[in-house]
Every structure is written in C-alpha cells, then in structure tokens.
C-alpha cells in the first residue's frame, strides 16, 4: 500500500511541476509573457580570459542579450529592461528573491553563470517561475569559446521548449542568396548566417548565377542551382570543406532541388525540349529515377517528412496548381482549388500542412493549407513575395519579398521576412545585402 502511494506521488510530482507557466503558441500572442533575462554571472578571472579570446568585455551579459533578442523576435515573450533588475546576477542564479522579480512584473526569470574551464566555456543556466517561486529547469554544458553565440541560442531553445512545450528553432542557420547590383544585372552569391543574422558568410564569389539553396537534413550539405559555365545544373556543396559537385548533369536544365528527408536522394526538376518533369537521384549509387511524366511543367517538388509523399507544382490543369503524389509518382492528386495560381509548395516538418505562394489579382500571398487542400489560410499579402521555408518546429515561415520599382525602374530591393503560422509577428530578417531564396536548417544541436 505504501509502495503504491509512493509510485503515485512520483508520477504526480513532475506533472505538478509542468503545471507552472505555459505559453500558448497556437494563436497570435497579443500578451507576450514578461520575462527577465538576468546577465549570466561571470567571475573576474573568466571575464579576463574571455575578453582576451573573444574581445567581449562581459561575455555573461552578451549571451543574455542573445537570449533576450531571440525571445523578443519570437513574439511570444516580452524581455524586460535589464536596468530595472534589482538583484545581482550571481546571487540571482543561486536563489532569486522572487519578490524583487515580481515587483518588475517578470513572470519567468532566466539566470546563469559562465566560467572559463580548461580553455573551454562552461555554462549553467536556470529557468524560474517567479509567481510560483520555483525552479523550472537547470542545465549545464561545456563548449569551445568560439561557440558563444550558439550558447545563447541553445539556452533560448531550452527556455522556449520548457515554456511552450514545443522544440525551439534558435540554434539554427539560414542559407540564402545574397543579392547586389541593379535589377537588370544582379550579382548573386550563396550565403549562410545564423538564424538571427549573425556570423554571415559567403559561400560563392558571385562569378556565376546561383539560386534556390536547400539544406540537407543534417545541415552539412547544400543543394542548389548554379549557372556555372552557363549550364544551369543542380549542385551539391559541402559547407565545411567547400567541395562542390554537379549532381544533375543531364542534357537540359536541372533545377528546383531538395533533399529527401533521409538525405539519401535529391529530388529536382529536369527540363528538356520544353517539358519539365520531376526526377530523383540517389546520392550513393547515382541512379536516376523519373518520378513524374507529363507534358506540362512539373516543378518545385518537396517530400513529406516521412518520405512517402511528394508535393509539387504543375500547370497540367492549364495554370500553376499544387499537387501531391506518392513518392513513386503514382496517385497524383490536385489539392489547390482556390482562386488564383499556386506555387512553391513545401511540406511542414510536422507533416500536417503545406506552405505555398499564391498569386491572385496581381498580389502575392504566403499561405498554408492542409495536405488534402482544405483549410487554406493566407498569412501575408504583398506586391511580390514567395518561397516559404519552415522553421524546424513548423511554427514560423521565412520567405523573401521584393519591392515594386517606380516609373523609372528604381527602388528595387529583396529582403527576407518571417511570419508565424498564426499570421502574426511578421518581421524583416536583417541581412548585410539584399537577400532571397531562404532555407531554414534543422536544429544544429539536439
């Protein structure tokens, strides 16, 4: 009897802990949760060491700012001004005076500590429920100091996951096309950056036109379209080694590439003699398989997360519409039936939705629909925007938007934007140059 009582207690305890603050991410959040992100405490010696290596005067403060910025960008949280904080970081991390944090209306509190240990960066952090006066989470990890920005992103992911019940999307990167120069003569380069726009790096020099980069599931490889030697072909790039190789070297044009969810295949369009169809190439044995066979344009293929289905864009009905089919090309079914043209379908990582671009009456929309075509929802309308890419948790879409030029053809720009699945929290993503064709990586750490 006593034993049974104990078992029940053990089961109940964690549930009780979970019943603390919760953030609902399924609707537009008009009341973001007030959260205090205390600067991470740092001892004098560690401070000196990090200052030497990273040129950052107070690494603890810098990391907390990354967390703060991520939380604010998500639209679900309202990070409070640090100047109002009453408690010192080191003491707050040991035992917060909840009355103090309550006074500034914080509902959640993040504290932590960074130390320099054996040439490494050690971080510990805690998440506190201010109203309940309880610790919700405590974690510690060690990494190389140069990863300090990622530390901020990982902390955010953990906090986000603990408070919303869903995985975060902050320790991720965006691969995109950097654009410069006049509209009639754009220089385009492959570029990669952290999700928050930092650590930007160009991966090609701009000598040839490059388009539509997409990550492999493990984020090590990128597949994209390059016009190297004026032969538009699908390429593969290893981000670490910089090794490039052509994978779609067929006599025609290969384009619109994406990886299969297991990373073993590339699916793409192959255009020849005025007809574009969908093909796959097995990266191991280089076997090419024709998936669609129709005299219309079939392009923009994207796998379902389980690899069983493919959604794609076809004009076989006369105009661009969205279709799904089995991964072997059978059971083709049209799913878009609303007014207008539909393109760029992308399957959500959660499997339940397909994001798309819609063109109707001279306006472009980013929207989502269920995989059977029902429940169409348009999230944003503009003069020109397209190419949505999902955050790894399926909660946010990143896409690009181009401006209308004036009567002299001036004023062109292309920028990355993100929007929540709810249709709220639309934001421009800062980039060094103009940008297009974004593709979101999966979580770098799991």
């Amino acid at each position, binding site marked *: 009897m006593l034993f049974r009582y104990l078992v029940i207690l053990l089961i109940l305890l964690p549930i009780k802990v979970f019943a603390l603050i919760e953030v609902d991410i399924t609707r537009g959040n008009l009341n973001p949760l007030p959260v205090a992100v205390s600067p991470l405490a740092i001892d004098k010696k560690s401070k000196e060491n990090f200052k030497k290596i990273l040129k950052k005067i107070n690494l603890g403060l810098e990391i907390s700012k990354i967390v703060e910025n991520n939380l604010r960008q998500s639209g679900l949280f309202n990070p409070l001004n640090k100047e109002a904080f009453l408690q010192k970081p080191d003491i707050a991390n040991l035992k917060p005076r909840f009355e103090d944090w309550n006074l500034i209306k914080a509902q959640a509190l993040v504290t932590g500590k960074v130390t320099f240990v054996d040439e490494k960066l050690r971080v510990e952090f805690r998440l506190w429920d201010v109203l309940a006066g309880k610790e919700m989470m405590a974690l510690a990890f060690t990494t190389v100091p140069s990863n300090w920005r990622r530390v901020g992103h990982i902390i955010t992911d953990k906090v986000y996951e603990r408070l919303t019940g869903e995985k975060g999307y902050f320790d991720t990167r965006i691969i995109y096309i950097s654009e410069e120069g006049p509209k009639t003569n754009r220089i385009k380069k492959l570029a990669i950056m952290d999700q928050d726009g930092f650590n930007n790096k160009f991966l090609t020099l701009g000598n040839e036109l490059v388009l539509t980069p997409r990550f492999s599931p493990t984020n090590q490889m990128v597949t994209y379209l390059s016009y190297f030697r004026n032969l538009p072909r699908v390429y593969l790039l290893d981000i670490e080694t910089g090794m490039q190789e052509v994978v779609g070297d067929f006599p025609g*044009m290969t384009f*619109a590439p994406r990886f299969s969810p297991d990373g073993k295949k590339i699916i793409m369009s192959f*255009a020849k003699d005025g007809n574009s169809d969908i093909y796959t190439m097995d990266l191991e044995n280089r076997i090419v398989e024709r998936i669609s066979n129709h005299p219309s344009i079939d392009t923009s293929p994207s796998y379902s997360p389980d690899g069983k289905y493919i959604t794609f*864009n076809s004009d076989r009905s006369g105009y661009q519409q969205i279709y799904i089919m089995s991964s072997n090309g059978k059971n083709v079914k049209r799913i878009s039936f609303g007014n207008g043209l539909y393109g760029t379908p992308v399957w959500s990582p959660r499997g339940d939705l397909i994001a798309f671009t819609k063109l109707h009456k001279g306006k472009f929309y980013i929207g989502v629909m269920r995989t059977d075509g029902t429940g169409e929802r348009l999230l944003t309308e503009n003069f*020109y925007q397209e190419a949505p890419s999902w955050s790894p948790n399926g909660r946010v879409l990143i896409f690009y938007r181009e401006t209308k030029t004036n009567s002299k*053809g001036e004023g062109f720009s292309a920028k990355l934007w993100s929007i929540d699945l709810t249709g709220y929290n639309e934001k421009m993503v800062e980039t060094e140059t103009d940008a297009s064709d974004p593709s979101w990586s999966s979580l770098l750490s799991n």
Partner: protein
Amino acid sequence: MNLSKILKNALLILVASLVLTACATKKTTTGQLQGDVYTGSDSVEYLASGVPDRVFFATNETVLTTASRETLRKQAAWLRKNSDINVVLEGHADERGTREYNLALGERRANSAKDYLMTYGISSDRISVLSYGKEKPIDSGSNPLAWSKNRRSVTVKAN
C-alpha cells in the same frame, strides 16, 4: 413613335457603340502592346539587317504570335544563309511568377522558338536552349509594359 422614344433609342445606340469601341480599344491597347504582348522595338537588337533577335510572349503563354513567327522565319532564313553560325535561344519570364516555375516557363518559351526554327529547316544541332527564368530582366520596371518586354526569347550567336 414619339420623340422621347426616338431619343431613348438613339441613346441606346450611342451607349452600345461606346461599349463596342471601348472593347475594341481594350483589345489592341496603346502603341507597344497587342493584348499584353510587346510589339515595340525598344530593347530589340538585330542579328543582321532586318533580322530582329527576339520574340515576345503573353503572360504565362508560350505560344508564338503572328509577329513572332515572322521574326523567326527571318532568323531561319538568315541561319540558312550563314550555316557556320550556331545560336543559343535564351528564354525569359517576367517578375510576376515564382522563380522555379519561371525557369521552366523560360525553357518552354525558348523551345517553342526552337521548334519553329526547326520547322524552317534549321538543324537542332545548331540551336541550344538556355532559360534564365526571371533572372535577367531587360527592363527593371514593375509595370505591364516592362513585364511585356521581359517575356521573351532572344536568339544569341553562340560562336
């Protein structure tokens, strides 16, 4: 028939003829557009005297217009005379479409020009096709006239 009835009928006829002219003007539109196909000469270059280098298309279309077929017949005649010259047909789309679909559309446009050249005796060995989709507009404007100039297939000497 009383006066008011006559007036009423006259008015009806007047309205009807106004509607008709409105329709007629809408179809031909101003100067450089027929339907929404560009018919002007801005941006057009010449492969040889009297041989224009490009043909234009309607929105989302790959069908050759009468004027386009005439241009391509001139190109075919020129190519027959200059059998040492090979060409690349560069297919383009305007900015009002998704990038990937436009790549396919540009390819289809260039191929419809290629097919026509082939029916006029030009060997497919001498013609290659290259689609730029919407990547290389000739006019940077965001208006119907600019878009019409950008929906094109341009014949370029390859050697």
